[in-house]
């Protein structure tokens, strides 16, 4: 770890042989008072990030474990249900994220060399990729919603029937696209104006936000174009029959009081969650006969949670990248100090890596 720092800045080799206190030869503005030198600070920061990433991996591991358990037990449901996912969109998103990872790695390299301008451009590019990803996700999610494929209770899909609500996302997509492209362009322009007028930090920040909004619109356009190509229609037709499992999901199963338990009586319970009428029956769990099997709604429950938690991480990453852009524009990094760039880069790679697993596990099932 330390070689990364020393590689480019041999002058920051530990100079204090004794376990000194007080006088440091090293007066770097970024050095915090409780560290002895930048090397120690760098090691600490980087180890901290790796631990945080370990924590993230375990956070996702719960989801992957749930996925594994259910897929193991219900392979057919997974194969059938996943045909509602658009592989092309998933593949494009994979490519977009890989590109963003490449860019951010390049940015870290630039930071090690103290090349400020490249840090900024690569990070803005990464931010743009992230926003394209989110744009494509937006279309994927809203399209499912319009089809009646929501998570859990919001799953209204029935094979061969169109379950249109009164309210369709599709009606607003055009507005959203035009809006984000226009707003994005304007905000980017403002950013450029600001930057050229001397307020570099505000300029880059506002510009990055503009690029993000613009890229969101771009992502939506890409997704819409792909959805309209015949490929998608063919796929849907070819696999349209694979939903036996949904039919089995009878929506109305009144709860039967299997074992009335003083300790565990509850009035609202499950009945309310399902939006059913069985209010007077205290829910105490289904009897074995009523136990529902794992089916389409469960698959999409897992799908939405996994991709949703991932999307939240993307958004967090975008905020972090914006922070790095602000600091870089402010000239806070140099070849001796670029820890935040490196750490945000590591985080971003992890978020990408999760997607690299999600994509085959959800979209490419056979």
């Amino acid at each position, binding site marked *: 770890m330390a070689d990364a720092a020393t590689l480019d800045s041999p002058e920051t080799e530990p100079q204090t042989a*004794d*376990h*000194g*206190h007080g006088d440091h030869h090293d007066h770097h503005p970024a050095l915090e*008072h*409780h*560290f002895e030198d930048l090397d*120690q600070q760098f*090691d*600490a920061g980087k*180890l*901290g990030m790796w*631990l*945080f990433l*370990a*924590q*993230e991996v*375990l*956070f*996702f*591991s*719960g*989801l992957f*474990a*749930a996925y594994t*358990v*259910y897929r193991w037990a219900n392979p057919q449901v997974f194969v059938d249900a996943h045909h509602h996912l658009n592989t092309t969109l998933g593949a494009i998103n994979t490519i977009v994220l890989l590109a963003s990872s490449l860019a951010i790695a390049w940015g870290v390299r630039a930071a090690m060399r103290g090349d400020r301008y490249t840090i900024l451009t690569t990070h803005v590019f990464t931010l743009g990729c992230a926003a394209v990803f989110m744009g494509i996700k937006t279309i994927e999610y809203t399209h499912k919603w319009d089809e009646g494929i*929501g*998570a*859990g*209770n*919001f799953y209204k899909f029935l094979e061969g029937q169109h379950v249109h609500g009164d309210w369709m996302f599709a009606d607003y997509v055009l507005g959203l696209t035009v809006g984000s492209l226009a707003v994005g362009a304007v905000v980017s322009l403002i950013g450029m104006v600001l930057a050229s007028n001397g307020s570099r930090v505000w300029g880059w920040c506002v510009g990055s936000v503009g690029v993000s909004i613009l890229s969101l619109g771009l992502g939506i356009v890409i997704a819409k174009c792909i959805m309209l190509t015949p490929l998608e229609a063919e796929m849907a037709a070819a696999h349209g029959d694979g939903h036996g499992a949904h039919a089995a999901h009878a929506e109305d*199963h009144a*709860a039967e009081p299997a074992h009335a338990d*003083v*300790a*565990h*009586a*509850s*009035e*609202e*319970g*499950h009945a309310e*969650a*399902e939006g059913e009428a069985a209010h007077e029956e205290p*829910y105490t*769990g*289904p009897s074995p006969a009523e*136990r*529902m*099997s*794992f*089916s389409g*709604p*469960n698959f999409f*429950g*897992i799908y*939405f*949670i996994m991709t949703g*938690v991932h999307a939240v991480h993307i958004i967090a990453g975008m905020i972090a990248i914006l922070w790095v852009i602000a600091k870089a524009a402010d000239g806070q990094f140099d070849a001796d100090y670029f820890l935040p760039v490196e750490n945000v880069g590591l985080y971003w790679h992890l978020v990408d890596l999760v997607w690299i697993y999600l994509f085959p596990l959800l979209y490419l099932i056979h």
Partner: protein
Amino acid sequence: MISQSRQHTLLEAIGEDPSRKVHIPQGPSYLTNPPGTTFWQAVGSWMFTLDHKRIGVMYLCGVMFAFLLGGIYAGLVRVELWNGTPGFLGESLQQAQNNYNQAFTLHGAIMTFLFIIPSIPAALGNIFLPMMLGAKDVAFPRMNLASFYLWCTGAVFFVATLLTSGLDTGWTFYTPYSTTTSTSVILATLGVFILGFSSIFTGLNFVVTVNTMRPKGMTWFKMPLFLWGIYSTAIIQVLATPVLAITLVLLVCERTLGIGIFDPAKGGDPVLFQHFFWFYSHPAVYIMILPGMAVISEVIPVYSRKHIFGYTFIAYSSVAIALLGFLVWGHHMFTSTESALAAVIFSALTFTVSIPSAIKVFNWLTTMYKGAIHFNAAMCYALAFMFLFTIGGLTGLFLGALSVDIHLHDTYFVVAHFHYVMMGGTLIAFLAGLHHWWPKMFGVMYNEFWARIACLLVFVGFNLTFFPQFILGTQGMPRRYAAYKEEFQFLHQLSTTGYFVLGTGLFLAAAVLIISLFKGKKAPDNPWGAATLEWKCCSPPTHHNFEVQPWTGSPYVYDDFVYDPDAEGYVEVLPDLQRDAKPAEAPAAPATT
């Protein structure tokens, strides 16, 4: 007693050459602000402090408040159980049982998530971990403060749970009941989620601090054992807590969206929740006990005036417990449709965990053997810990044995077991640490006599409360019931009586400590003659802990600490190099006067 005769020679040596006495520079206490600070500036200086000691003190206040709250709920549970018939918590059985469910749930959840998990690491660890390293602070002071405020936010969620419809799922949040009950499960789970991140941040901070901020001379095996224990704990905090976090996210989604992961009515698997929950919560019991063991490993050698026995064994056993702890969660699920094969494997693995625990107990005992034991309050608590933890650990083996657990599962035997380890273990160790470090933290001495009386009351009260519960459990009294059969009444009444004795003891201990803040004598820098670095600065320490870098000697060699009647405490004397022919890498001239 070798050490005493040596002390003698050294005493003479100071007489001859007072310059060998290590002088500890005094400075303004971290508790005070510079003169002229207004009230609001002072408040701000605490609220936004990055000083690990102040954050530790705030944590201390926080966890003590949580402990009080949890203790009150425990009282509700115990008083209801005075009679086998409903009464105190409701007229009808239904009413009493509903309220009883709330009381034991809130008691358990508050004690576990708000009190025990942060108690030793976040309060005592925060204050003493950097000091034991001779460092100025933890690696990430801002994250440390964030962790405290996350704890506060989590506490607010819990209070919100209390003020809305409460919680009646048990601290384990088992599905499907937790997805269907009408109580505030979402508020409580969000609270636990946030507390989880508070715990992760603390753990992360400690791992990094220990890894990167040790002073030059302190190799891994020269670290005080407290650090080994906290380090192992921190690893579990970082690696186990996120699994709980995602489980709770799934639980919240289950309740709000009905995603069908855990709810059998929707095709989900409720047993999966138990797996997830215990994958965190068994390691979490080691998050609770390892810091306790860490405190005991410091306290016992100091008051026995003897080098700790089996240092490396104690150090490795902490790590072993941390790692093995990840492999035994299935012992909570012997009766939850676990396959016979899995049950046998988990049972066998459970037995292996007891090996490192026993190693520690034997090493502490051996440390005391032929030591010059001083029965200070801290040592009394440490002895109580050894006794109670041993009972707790041994009864864990009963529960880990498959056939026996089928009978004992979900009875009062389990309740007694975990109280012996959690309360008899962690809480008592926390009190030991609090008494041991109190003079350093606040710079005052408490009344030893009353502190010891309090310890005695706690010990007696504790056993009176929980020992009868072992018997109740073997006789078949199930846990989590508000009413019971006649025949259990006597033991339940003993237990409830014990609660009041225990409570009195705890209040007395608190009173002794709090009174000392106002009336206590000023503490010497090293009242107990301990050799770890936190005693090599003034009491209470300054903002930067050390005005001069202390010499890192062995944390358990007490020969160079001699009692100085003038200071009413111990002072360190530099070894006489010519006479003792100490190892060559002896001190590079620490500051002396």
